[in-house]
Protein backbone atom coordinates (compact mmCIF):
# COMPACT_ATOMS: atom_id res chain seq x y z
CA UNK A 1 0.00 0.00 0.00
CA UNK A 2 1.90 3.00 -1.20
CA UNK A 3 1.08 6.15 0.65
CA UNK A 4 1.01 9.49 -1.02
CA UNK A 5 4.48 10.01 0.24
CA UNK A 6 5.58 13.06 2.03
CA UNK A 7 2.85 15.08 0.45
CA UNK A 8 0.40 13.88 3.03
CA UNK A 9 2.53 15.09 5.87
CA UNK A 10 2.79 18.85 5.61
CA UNK A 11 0.13 19.51 8.13
CA UNK A 12 1.92 17.36 10.62
CA UNK A 13 5.19 19.16 10.35
CA UNK A 14 4.29 22.76 10.36
CA UNK A 15 6.98 25.33 10.45
CA UNK A 16 9.06 23.57 7.91
CA UNK A 17 8.08 25.91 5.18
CA UNK A 18 9.27 28.80 7.28
CA UNK A 19 12.61 27.11 7.77
CA UNK A 20 12.90 26.36 4.10
CA UNK A 21 12.04 29.86 3.05
CA UNK A 22 14.56 31.22 5.50
CA UNK A 23 17.16 28.98 3.97
CA UNK A 24 16.51 30.12 0.45
CA UNK A 25 16.67 33.71 1.59
CA UNK A 26 19.93 32.97 3.35
CA UNK A 27 21.31 31.41 0.21
CA UNK A 28 20.48 34.21 -2.11
CA UNK A 29 20.73 37.41 -0.12
CA UNK A 30 24.53 37.63 -0.06
CA UNK A 31 24.63 37.17 -3.79
CA UNK A 32 21.92 39.70 -4.41
CA UNK A 33 23.71 42.19 -2.22
CA UNK A 34 26.92 41.60 -4.07
CA UNK A 35 25.32 42.13 -7.41
CA UNK A 36 23.46 45.19 -6.23
CA UNK A 37 26.55 46.87 -4.95
CA UNK A 38 28.44 46.32 -8.15
CA UNK A 39 26.35 49.11 -9.47
CA UNK A 40 27.35 51.37 -6.66
CA UNK A 41 28.34 54.85 -7.69
CA UNK A 42 30.62 55.47 -4.78
CA UNK A 43 34.06 54.08 -4.05
CA UNK A 44 33.09 52.14 -0.98
CA UNK A 45 31.78 48.70 -1.68
CA UNK A 46 29.29 48.80 1.10
CA UNK A 47 27.98 52.27 1.26
CA UNK A 48 25.51 53.07 -1.37
CA UNK A 49 26.01 56.22 -3.36
CA UNK A 50 23.82 55.92 -6.34
CA UNK A 51 23.60 53.78 -9.42
CA UNK A 52 26.51 53.60 -11.78
CA UNK A 53 28.15 51.34 -14.30
CA UNK A 54 31.59 52.81 -13.96
CA UNK A 55 33.04 49.82 -12.25
CA UNK A 56 32.06 47.55 -15.07
CA UNK A 57 33.66 49.93 -17.49
CA UNK A 58 36.81 50.04 -15.44
CA UNK A 59 36.98 46.31 -15.16
CA UNK A 60 36.33 45.55 -18.78
CA UNK A 61 38.92 48.01 -19.90
CA UNK A 62 41.58 46.62 -17.64
CA UNK A 63 44.24 44.72 -19.54
CA UNK A 64 44.84 42.38 -16.68
CA UNK A 65 41.20 41.47 -16.57
CA UNK A 66 41.14 40.76 -20.27
CA UNK A 67 44.24 38.64 -20.13
CA UNK A 68 42.94 36.66 -17.18
CA UNK A 69 39.55 36.23 -18.77
CA UNK A 70 41.12 35.10 -22.01
CA UNK A 71 43.26 32.57 -20.20
CA UNK A 72 40.30 31.26 -18.31
CA UNK A 73 38.25 30.86 -21.44
CA UNK A 74 40.99 29.08 -23.26
CA UNK A 75 41.69 26.73 -20.42
CA UNK A 76 38.04 26.08 -19.72
CA UNK A 77 37.03 25.38 -23.28
CA UNK A 78 40.00 23.17 -24.01
CA UNK A 79 39.71 21.23 -20.78
CA UNK A 80 35.99 20.86 -21.16
CA UNK A 81 36.36 19.63 -24.69
CA UNK A 82 39.00 17.08 -23.78
CA UNK A 83 37.19 16.02 -20.66
CA UNK A 84 33.92 15.56 -22.51
CA UNK A 85 35.54 13.55 -25.25
CA UNK A 86 37.26 11.27 -22.80
CA UNK A 87 34.14 10.98 -20.70
CA UNK A 88 32.08 10.02 -23.72
CA UNK A 89 34.55 7.36 -24.73
CA UNK A 90 34.63 6.06 -21.21
CA UNK A 91 30.86 5.98 -20.94
CA UNK A 92 30.58 4.10 -24.22
CA UNK A 93 33.33 1.75 -23.26
CA UNK A 94 31.79 0.84 -19.97
CA UNK A 95 28.39 0.20 -21.37
CA UNK A 96 26.89 -3.13 -20.55
CA UNK A 97 29.99 -4.40 -18.84
CA UNK A 98 29.11 -4.07 -15.23
CA UNK A 99 31.84 -6.29 -13.95
CA UNK A 100 34.97 -5.31 -15.69
CA UNK A 101 36.06 -1.79 -14.98
CA UNK A 102 33.38 -0.67 -12.62
CA UNK A 103 35.29 -1.17 -9.42
CA UNK A 104 38.12 0.91 -10.70
CA UNK A 105 35.92 3.65 -11.99
CA UNK A 106 34.07 4.50 -8.81
CA UNK A 107 37.02 5.91 -6.86
CA UNK A 108 38.22 7.68 -9.94
CA UNK A 109 34.89 9.33 -10.46
CA UNK A 110 34.27 10.41 -6.93
CA UNK A 111 37.65 11.81 -6.16
CA UNK A 112 36.72 15.46 -6.72
CA UNK A 113 34.21 15.01 -3.99
CA UNK A 114 36.22 12.87 -1.66
CA UNK A 115 39.61 14.52 -1.78
CA UNK A 116 40.01 18.15 -0.79
CA UNK A 117 41.06 20.34 -3.65
CA UNK A 118 44.17 21.44 -1.92
CA UNK A 119 45.50 17.93 -1.67
CA UNK A 120 44.93 17.41 -5.35
CA UNK A 121 46.59 20.72 -6.05
CA UNK A 122 49.67 19.85 -4.04
CA UNK A 123 49.93 16.41 -5.49
CA UNK A 124 49.56 17.64 -9.03
CA UNK A 125 52.14 20.33 -8.48
CA UNK A 126 54.68 17.90 -7.19
CA UNK A 127 53.85 15.49 -9.94
CA UNK A 128 54.33 18.06 -12.65
CA UNK A 129 57.59 19.28 -11.27
CA UNK A 130 58.98 15.85 -10.90
CA UNK A 131 57.99 14.79 -14.36
CA UNK A 132 59.11 18.01 -15.92
CA UNK A 133 55.87 19.48 -17.12
CA UNK A 134 56.23 23.23 -17.09
CA UNK A 135 53.76 25.19 -15.09
CA UNK A 136 51.55 27.24 -17.28
CA UNK A 137 48.68 26.88 -19.65
CA UNK A 138 49.46 23.36 -20.71
CA UNK A 139 49.76 22.12 -17.17
CA UNK A 140 46.59 23.89 -16.24
CA UNK A 141 44.69 22.37 -19.08
CA UNK A 142 45.95 18.93 -18.23
CA UNK A 143 45.02 19.22 -14.57
CA UNK A 144 41.64 20.75 -15.32
CA UNK A 145 40.82 18.06 -17.81
CA UNK A 146 41.45 15.42 -15.22
CA UNK A 147 39.15 16.76 -12.60
CA UNK A 148 36.48 17.78 -15.09
CA UNK A 149 36.09 14.30 -16.50
CA UNK A 150 33.95 13.00 -13.63
CA UNK A 151 31.41 15.77 -14.07
CA UNK A 152 31.02 15.17 -17.75
CA UNK A 153 31.02 11.43 -17.26
CA UNK A 154 28.18 11.40 -14.78
CA UNK A 155 25.99 13.50 -17.03
CA UNK A 156 26.61 11.36 -20.06
CA UNK A 157 26.39 8.04 -18.29
CA UNK A 158 23.09 8.98 -16.69
CA UNK A 159 21.65 9.62 -20.09
CA UNK A 160 23.18 6.54 -21.54
CA UNK A 161 21.71 4.29 -18.90
CA UNK A 162 18.22 5.35 -19.79
CA UNK A 163 18.76 4.80 -23.46
CA UNK A 164 17.00 1.88 -24.99
CA UNK A 165 19.37 -0.86 -26.12
CA UNK A 166 16.90 -2.28 -28.57
CA UNK A 167 17.23 0.86 -30.66
CA UNK A 168 20.73 -0.10 -31.58
CA UNK A 169 19.66 -3.66 -32.21
CA UNK A 170 16.96 -2.34 -34.48
CA UNK A 171 19.52 -0.33 -36.38
CA UNK A 172 21.70 -3.41 -36.74
CA UNK A 173 18.71 -5.34 -37.95
CA UNK A 174 18.17 -2.65 -40.56
CA UNK A 175 21.54 -3.14 -42.15
CA UNK A 176 23.54 -0.62 -40.14
CA UNK A 177 26.91 -1.92 -38.99
CA UNK A 178 28.19 -0.78 -35.58
CA UNK A 179 29.91 2.30 -36.92
CA UNK A 180 26.89 3.52 -38.81
CA UNK A 181 24.66 2.66 -35.89
CA UNK A 182 26.72 4.87 -33.65
CA UNK A 183 26.45 7.88 -35.90
CA UNK A 184 22.88 7.40 -36.94
CA UNK A 185 21.29 6.38 -33.66
CA UNK A 186 23.51 6.48 -30.58
CA UNK A 187 25.15 9.82 -31.05
CA UNK A 188 22.02 11.82 -31.92
CA UNK A 189 20.30 10.45 -28.86
CA UNK A 190 23.24 11.08 -26.59
CA UNK A 191 24.01 14.48 -27.96
CA UNK A 192 22.10 16.66 -25.47
CA UNK A 193 23.78 14.93 -22.57
CA UNK A 194 27.20 15.29 -24.13
CA UNK A 195 26.60 18.96 -24.62
CA UNK A 196 25.32 19.36 -21.07
CA UNK A 197 28.39 17.52 -19.83
CA UNK A 198 30.57 19.88 -21.78
CA UNK A 199 28.93 22.89 -20.25
CA UNK A 200 29.23 21.47 -16.78
CA UNK A 201 32.90 20.74 -17.30
CA UNK A 202 33.34 24.23 -18.63
CA UNK A 203 31.88 25.84 -15.54
CA UNK A 204 33.85 23.63 -13.22
CA UNK A 205 37.03 24.57 -14.99
CA UNK A 206 36.18 28.23 -15.17
CA UNK A 207 35.38 28.41 -11.50
CA UNK A 208 38.36 26.51 -10.27
CA UNK A 209 40.62 28.43 -8.00
CA UNK A 210 42.72 26.37 -5.66
CA UNK A 211 44.21 24.02 -8.20
CA UNK A 212 44.80 26.83 -10.64
CA UNK A 213 46.50 28.86 -7.96
CA UNK A 214 49.05 26.17 -7.44
CA UNK A 215 49.65 25.37 -11.03
CA UNK A 216 49.48 28.63 -12.86
CA UNK A 217 52.64 30.32 -13.85
CA UNK A 218 53.00 34.08 -13.90
CA UNK A 219 51.72 34.38 -17.42
CA UNK A 220 48.75 32.11 -17.13
CA UNK A 221 46.63 33.87 -14.58
CA UNK A 222 43.08 32.76 -14.73
CA UNK A 223 40.08 34.86 -13.90
CA UNK A 224 39.54 33.49 -10.40
CA UNK A 225 43.17 34.07 -9.57
CA UNK A 226 42.89 37.61 -10.83
CA UNK A 227 39.79 38.13 -8.74
CA UNK A 228 41.51 36.77 -5.69
CA UNK A 229 44.33 39.23 -6.15
CA UNK A 230 41.86 42.05 -6.29
CA UNK A 231 40.10 40.87 -3.18
CA UNK A 232 43.34 40.74 -1.32
CA UNK A 233 44.11 44.29 -2.26
CA UNK A 234 40.89 45.73 -1.04
CA UNK A 235 37.20 45.84 -1.19
CA UNK A 236 35.97 47.98 -4.01
CA UNK A 237 32.91 47.79 -6.18
CA UNK A 238 35.23 46.83 -8.97
CA UNK A 239 35.60 43.49 -7.28
CA UNK A 240 31.86 43.26 -7.08
CA UNK A 241 31.71 43.92 -10.78
CA UNK A 242 34.13 41.18 -11.69
CA UNK A 243 32.38 38.81 -9.35
CA UNK A 244 29.04 39.58 -10.86
CA UNK A 245 30.34 38.98 -14.34
CA UNK A 246 31.61 35.57 -13.35
CA UNK A 247 28.43 34.81 -11.49
CA UNK A 248 26.23 35.67 -14.42
CA UNK A 249 28.32 33.59 -16.78
CA UNK A 250 28.18 30.60 -14.47
CA UNK A 251 24.45 30.84 -13.98
CA UNK A 252 23.79 31.19 -17.68
CA UNK A 253 25.79 28.11 -18.39
CA UNK A 254 24.08 26.10 -15.68
CA UNK A 255 20.71 27.08 -17.04
CA UNK A 256 21.76 26.03 -20.52
CA UNK A 257 23.03 22.71 -19.26
CA UNK A 258 19.82 22.05 -17.38
CA UNK A 259 17.77 22.97 -20.40
CA UNK A 260 19.85 20.68 -22.58
CA UNK A 261 19.24 17.81 -20.26
CA UNK A 262 15.54 18.37 -20.46
CA UNK A 263 15.52 18.09 -24.21
CA UNK A 264 15.15 14.40 -24.63
CA UNK A 265 13.35 12.82 -27.53
CA UNK A 266 11.23 10.15 -25.97
Amino acid sequence: MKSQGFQSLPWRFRGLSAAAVALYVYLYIPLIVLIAFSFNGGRMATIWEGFSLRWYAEVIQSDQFRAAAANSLIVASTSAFLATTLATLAALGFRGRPLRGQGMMVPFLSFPLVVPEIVTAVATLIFFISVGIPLGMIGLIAAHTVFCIPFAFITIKARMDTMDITLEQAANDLFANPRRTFFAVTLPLLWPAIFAGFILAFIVSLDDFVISLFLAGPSSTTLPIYMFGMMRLGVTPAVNAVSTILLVVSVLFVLTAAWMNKISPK
Partner: protein
Amino acid sequence: MLIMVFVSLVERAPDGGVVWGRFTTVAYTQFFYEENLLGEMSFNSDYMQIYLRSILLAGFTVLATFVVGFPTAMYVAMQEPGRRALLIFFLSLPFWVNLLVRNYAWLLLLRANGLLDQALMGLWITSEPLNILYSNTAIAIGLTYSFLPLMVLPIYAAMEKFDFSLVEAAFDLGANRVQVLMHVIIPGVKGGIIAGCLLVFIPGLGSYVTPVLLGGSKSLMIGNLIEAQFAAARNWPFGAALAFVLLLMVVLAALLRALLLRHRQRVAP
Protein backbone atom coordinates in the same frame (compact mmCIF):
# COMPACT_ATOMS: atom_id res chain seq x y z
CA MET B 1 44.60 5.71 -10.89
CA LEU B 2 45.94 9.16 -11.27
CA ILE B 3 45.12 9.87 -7.71
CA MET B 4 47.16 6.91 -6.61
CA VAL B 5 50.07 8.24 -8.57
CA PHE B 6 49.65 11.58 -6.94
CA VAL B 7 49.45 10.11 -3.50
CA SER B 8 52.54 8.07 -3.90
CA LEU B 9 54.34 11.09 -5.13
CA VAL B 10 53.23 13.09 -2.19
CA GLU B 11 54.68 10.43 -0.02
CA ARG B 12 58.03 10.69 -1.54
CA ALA B 13 59.23 13.73 0.20
CA PRO B 14 62.67 14.79 -0.86
CA ASP B 15 65.22 15.93 1.57
CA GLY B 16 66.37 19.46 1.34
CA GLY B 17 64.47 22.52 0.13
CA VAL B 18 63.13 22.72 -3.35
CA VAL B 19 65.80 20.60 -4.82
CA TRP B 20 64.92 17.04 -5.54
CA GLY B 21 67.36 14.80 -3.83
CA ARG B 22 67.06 11.21 -2.93
CA PHE B 23 63.68 9.98 -1.95
CA THR B 24 63.35 8.63 1.50
CA THR B 25 60.39 8.12 3.67
CA VAL B 26 62.53 8.29 6.73
CA ALA B 27 63.32 11.92 6.03
CA TYR B 28 59.61 12.42 5.62
CA THR B 29 58.60 11.28 9.04
CA GLN B 30 61.56 12.95 10.59
CA PHE B 31 60.56 16.14 8.95
CA PHE B 32 57.10 15.98 10.28
CA TYR B 33 58.09 15.56 13.83
CA GLU B 34 60.97 17.86 13.51
CA GLU B 35 58.70 20.68 12.57
CA ASN B 36 56.49 19.86 15.45
CA LEU B 37 59.25 19.98 17.93
CA LEU B 38 60.68 23.16 19.27
CA GLY B 39 64.24 22.67 20.24
CA GLU B 40 64.41 19.26 21.75
CA MET B 41 61.50 16.97 22.31
CA SER B 42 59.11 19.69 23.23
CA PHE B 43 55.95 19.87 21.30
CA ASN B 44 55.25 22.76 19.03
CA SER B 45 51.59 23.18 19.45
CA ASP B 46 51.01 25.73 16.73
CA TYR B 47 50.51 23.27 13.95
CA MET B 48 48.47 21.02 16.11
CA GLN B 49 46.33 23.97 16.95
CA ILE B 50 45.70 24.68 13.33
CA TYR B 51 44.70 21.11 12.65
CA LEU B 52 42.48 21.12 15.67
CA ARG B 53 40.82 24.34 14.69
CA SER B 54 40.23 22.95 11.24
CA ILE B 55 38.64 19.82 12.61
CA LEU B 56 36.45 21.80 14.94
CA LEU B 57 35.38 24.25 12.31
CA ALA B 58 34.66 21.52 9.82
CA GLY B 59 32.73 19.63 12.46
CA PHE B 60 30.76 22.69 13.38
CA THR B 61 29.97 23.29 9.76
CA VAL B 62 28.65 19.77 9.47
CA LEU B 63 26.42 20.38 12.43
CA ALA B 64 25.25 23.77 11.23
CA THR B 65 24.52 22.61 7.72
CA PHE B 66 22.63 19.67 9.12
CA VAL B 67 20.49 21.73 11.45
CA VAL B 68 19.68 24.20 8.73
CA GLY B 69 19.57 21.77 5.86
CA PHE B 70 17.58 18.87 7.21
CA PRO B 71 14.28 20.71 7.61
CA THR B 72 14.68 22.13 4.15
CA ALA B 73 15.35 18.75 2.67
CA MET B 74 12.21 17.48 4.31
CA TYR B 75 10.24 20.43 3.11
CA VAL B 76 11.27 19.95 -0.47
CA ALA B 77 10.56 16.24 -0.28
CA MET B 78 7.05 17.11 0.76
CA GLN B 79 6.26 19.06 -2.35
CA GLU B 80 4.76 17.61 -5.43
CA PRO B 81 7.25 16.35 -8.03
CA GLY B 82 7.17 19.32 -10.38
CA ARG B 83 7.82 21.84 -7.68
CA ARG B 84 10.42 19.64 -6.14
CA ALA B 85 12.64 19.67 -9.17
CA LEU B 86 12.40 23.42 -9.35
CA LEU B 87 13.23 23.89 -5.69
CA ILE B 88 16.19 21.57 -5.89
CA PHE B 89 17.43 23.40 -8.90
CA PHE B 90 17.32 26.72 -7.12
CA LEU B 91 18.93 25.18 -4.13
CA SER B 92 21.92 24.01 -6.09
CA LEU B 93 22.21 27.05 -8.29
CA PRO B 94 24.28 29.13 -5.86
CA PHE B 95 26.63 26.22 -5.63
CA TRP B 96 27.68 26.75 -9.20
CA VAL B 97 28.74 30.28 -8.46
CA ASN B 98 32.42 30.58 -7.88
CA LEU B 99 33.52 29.90 -4.34
CA LEU B 100 35.50 33.11 -4.27
CA VAL B 101 32.48 35.11 -5.22
CA ARG B 102 30.34 33.50 -2.58
CA ASN B 103 32.81 34.07 0.20
CA TYR B 104 33.52 37.57 -0.98
CA ALA B 105 29.84 38.32 -0.63
CA TRP B 106 30.09 37.42 3.03
CA LEU B 107 33.19 39.51 3.29
CA LEU B 108 31.10 42.45 2.28
CA LEU B 109 28.43 41.64 4.75
CA LEU B 110 30.57 40.90 7.74
CA ARG B 111 33.26 43.50 7.69
CA ALA B 112 33.26 46.35 10.16
CA ASN B 113 30.63 48.75 9.00
CA GLY B 114 29.72 46.27 6.40
CA LEU B 115 26.15 45.60 5.51
CA LEU B 116 25.33 43.38 8.41
CA ASP B 117 26.52 46.01 10.81
CA GLN B 118 24.65 48.69 8.94
CA ALA B 119 21.49 46.67 9.11
CA LEU B 120 21.83 45.86 12.78
CA MET B 121 22.71 49.38 13.74
CA GLY B 122 19.99 50.74 11.58
CA LEU B 123 17.53 48.59 13.44
CA TRP B 124 18.93 49.75 16.74
CA ILE B 125 19.94 46.23 17.70
CA THR B 126 23.55 47.12 18.17
CA SER B 127 25.24 50.42 18.60
CA GLU B 128 28.74 49.49 17.59
CA PRO B 129 30.08 47.52 14.69
CA LEU B 130 30.51 43.87 15.48
CA ASN B 131 33.89 42.75 14.37
CA ILE B 132 32.81 39.49 12.99
CA LEU B 133 35.19 39.46 10.12
CA TYR B 134 38.57 37.84 10.55
CA SER B 135 37.46 35.47 13.21
CA ASN B 136 36.54 31.87 13.62
CA THR B 137 32.92 32.85 13.54
CA ALA B 138 33.29 34.41 10.15
CA ILE B 139 34.92 31.28 8.84
CA ALA B 140 32.16 29.18 10.27
CA ILE B 141 29.52 31.29 8.57
CA GLY B 142 31.41 31.18 5.32
CA LEU B 143 31.88 27.42 5.41
CA THR B 144 28.26 26.79 6.24
CA TYR B 145 27.18 28.95 3.37
CA SER B 146 29.57 27.38 0.93
CA PHE B 147 28.69 23.80 1.61
CA LEU B 148 25.04 23.89 2.49
CA PRO B 149 23.84 22.34 -0.78
CA LEU B 150 26.23 19.45 -0.23
CA MET B 151 24.36 18.50 2.90
CA VAL B 152 20.86 19.11 1.64
CA LEU B 153 21.07 17.21 -1.61
CA PRO B 154 22.07 13.78 -0.29
CA ILE B 155 19.48 13.99 2.46
CA TYR B 156 16.85 14.98 -0.03
CA ALA B 157 17.84 12.12 -2.31
CA ALA B 158 17.51 9.68 0.57
CA MET B 159 14.14 11.08 1.47
CA GLU B 160 12.84 10.63 -2.02
CA LYS B 161 13.51 6.94 -1.74
CA PHE B 162 12.15 6.65 1.74
CA ASP B 163 8.96 4.76 2.33
CA PHE B 164 6.63 7.21 4.02
CA SER B 165 3.92 4.80 4.83
CA LEU B 166 6.16 4.05 7.78
CA VAL B 167 5.71 7.58 9.01
CA GLU B 168 1.99 7.40 8.64
CA ALA B 169 1.96 4.09 10.46
CA ALA B 170 3.93 5.63 13.29
CA PHE B 171 1.52 8.50 13.62
CA ASP B 172 -1.31 6.08 13.48
CA LEU B 173 0.18 4.22 16.40
CA GLY B 174 0.17 7.34 18.47
CA ALA B 175 3.66 8.74 18.19
CA ASN B 176 4.01 12.46 18.33
CA ARG B 177 6.01 14.51 15.88
CA VAL B 178 9.27 14.44 17.74
CA GLN B 179 9.16 10.71 18.20
CA VAL B 180 8.37 10.13 14.58
CA LEU B 181 11.27 12.29 13.61
CA MET B 182 13.75 10.63 15.89
CA HIS B 183 12.74 7.06 15.49
CA VAL B 184 11.40 6.76 12.00
CA ILE B 185 12.57 9.48 9.68
CA ILE B 186 16.12 10.04 10.78
CA PRO B 187 17.09 6.37 10.91
CA GLY B 188 15.41 5.95 7.57
CA VAL B 189 17.51 8.50 5.81
CA LYS B 190 20.64 7.79 7.74
CA GLY B 191 22.58 6.94 4.59
CA GLY B 192 21.86 10.32 3.13
CA ILE B 193 22.75 12.07 6.34
CA ILE B 194 26.08 10.33 6.59
CA ALA B 195 26.82 11.08 2.95
CA GLY B 196 25.98 14.71 3.49
CA CYS B 197 28.18 14.93 6.55
CA LEU B 198 31.08 13.50 4.67
CA LEU B 199 30.54 15.73 1.68
CA VAL B 200 30.66 18.75 3.95
CA PHE B 201 33.37 17.65 6.30
CA ILE B 202 36.00 16.82 3.72
CA PRO B 203 36.07 20.03 1.75
CA GLY B 204 35.53 21.88 4.99
CA LEU B 205 38.63 20.39 6.46
CA GLY B 206 40.75 21.20 3.46
CA SER B 207 39.17 24.53 2.82
CA TYR B 208 41.42 27.32 1.71
CA VAL B 209 39.34 30.06 0.20
CA THR B 210 37.01 30.65 3.09
CA PRO B 211 39.63 31.02 5.80
CA VAL B 212 41.87 33.12 3.63
CA LEU B 213 39.16 35.59 2.80
CA LEU B 214 37.21 35.57 6.01
CA GLY B 215 39.63 34.39 8.61
CA GLY B 216 42.54 36.72 8.51
CA SER B 217 45.99 35.86 9.75
CA LYS B 218 44.90 34.82 13.18
CA SER B 219 42.60 32.06 12.09
CA LEU B 220 44.45 29.68 9.91
CA MET B 221 43.19 26.40 8.70
CA ILE B 222 45.07 23.49 7.22
CA GLY B 223 44.52 24.73 3.73
CA ASN B 224 46.15 28.05 4.41
CA LEU B 225 49.03 26.39 6.12
CA ILE B 226 49.71 24.12 3.23
CA GLU B 227 49.52 26.91 0.74
CA ALA B 228 51.92 28.96 2.76
CA GLN B 229 54.48 26.22 2.53
CA PHE B 230 54.39 26.33 -1.20
CA ALA B 231 54.33 30.02 -1.62
CA ALA B 232 55.95 32.01 1.10
CA ALA B 233 57.82 29.55 3.25
CA ARG B 234 59.15 27.55 0.31
CA ASN B 235 59.13 24.47 2.41
CA TRP B 236 57.76 22.01 -0.05
CA PRO B 237 58.43 18.81 1.78
CA PHE B 238 56.63 20.07 4.82
CA GLY B 239 53.76 21.21 2.72
CA ALA B 240 53.60 17.83 1.09
CA ALA B 241 53.67 16.18 4.46
CA LEU B 242 50.83 18.34 5.71
CA ALA B 243 48.81 17.58 2.64
CA PHE B 244 49.38 13.92 3.16
CA VAL B 245 48.23 14.09 6.75
CA LEU B 246 45.11 15.83 5.54
CA LEU B 247 44.58 13.09 3.04
CA LEU B 248 44.91 10.49 5.73
CA MET B 249 42.31 12.24 7.82
CA VAL B 250 40.00 12.31 4.86
CA VAL B 251 40.53 8.65 4.18
CA LEU B 252 39.83 7.94 7.81
CA ALA B 253 36.58 9.81 7.64
CA ALA B 254 35.59 7.93 4.52
CA LEU B 255 36.43 4.61 6.12
CA LEU B 256 34.33 5.57 9.09
CA ARG B 257 31.44 6.18 6.82
CA ALA B 258 31.93 2.87 5.08
CA LEU B 259 31.97 1.12 8.42
CA LEU B 260 28.84 2.87 9.56
CA LEU B 261 27.05 1.91 6.39
CA ARG B 262 28.09 -1.67 6.54
CA HIS B 263 26.96 -1.93 10.11
CA ARG B 264 23.62 -0.62 8.99
CA GLN B 265 23.36 -3.24 6.29
CA ARG B 266 23.88 -5.99 8.76
CA VAL B 267 21.38 -4.61 11.17
CA ALA B 268 18.65 -4.19 8.59
CA PRO B 269 16.39 -7.23 8.26
